[in-house]
């Protein structure tokens, strides 16, 4: 049988969903970035002497902590959203339910990431 795909579509390599390997690639890139970020987060939180208000704020206000935390929040929510999307696609059967779930997870991840980044910046810059 003749190949029904046009030469252009084969060269572009984006498939029928028009996104190619972008989901896969973004998930792996964020996964690699999260290795150092998770190790940093776990050990810095474990090293905190306590959870009291001023100590936590002083910790988050230091430039290194603030930068690492903003990176962690953005990358972690992106990675989480990509993974939850795959799980929804695998287990939510109906078209409407699936779309609603993916939209909900995407909005929740975006909102929470912005809340997190804003909070870190507020502690850092607004004292």
């Amino acid at each position, binding site marked *: 049988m003749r190949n029904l795909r046009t030469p252009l579509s084969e060269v572009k390599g984006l498939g029928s969903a028009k996104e190619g390997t972008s989901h896969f690639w973004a998930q*792996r890139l964020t*996964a*690699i970035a*999260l*290795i150092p970020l*998770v*190790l940093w987060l*776990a*050990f810095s*939180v*474990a*090293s*905190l*002497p306590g*959870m*009291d*208000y001023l100590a*936590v*704020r002083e910790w*988050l206000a230091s430039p290194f902590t603030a930068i690492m*935390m903003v990176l962690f*929040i953005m990358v*972690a*929510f992106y990675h*989480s959203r990509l*993974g*939850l999307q795959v*799980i929804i696609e695998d287990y939510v059967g109906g078209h409407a339910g699936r779309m609603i779930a993916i939209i909900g997870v995407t909005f929740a991840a975006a909102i*929470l*990431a912005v*809340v*997190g980044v*804003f*909070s*870190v910046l*507020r*502690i850092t810059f607004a004292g």
Partner: protein
Amino acid sequence: MAWNDTRPLSPHLQHYKLPLTAYLSVAHRATGIVNSLAIVLLVLLIASAASTPENHGFMAGLATSWFGSLVLFGFTLTLYYHMCNGIRHLFWDVGYGFEVETATKSAYVCLAAAATLSVITWIVAAAA
């Protein structure tokens, strides 16, 4: 009428003992979902620290209660497990470690590494 069909059944979940690698695969998804909850709680904790001492006191109180500590201990396990098994996945992505023996070996390495990292983190937390 009694069941007298002796032909073998298709090995569905109640009859087929899953290999270790399959349990790790299931656990990767499960810990991914748990870790998503963990970062939600992290943001709530940071947001509370950015607001009033009262709000932060409430969140910090939850985190340092016995139940909160138990949850945080659990999160170190799920984060490290997902990270170690994710590294296993990254090796598969570039074409290494697909042989059954290698995959089983790396499964044990992944479990041991996640447990070791968790214990080290708990020791650091206890000493701090």
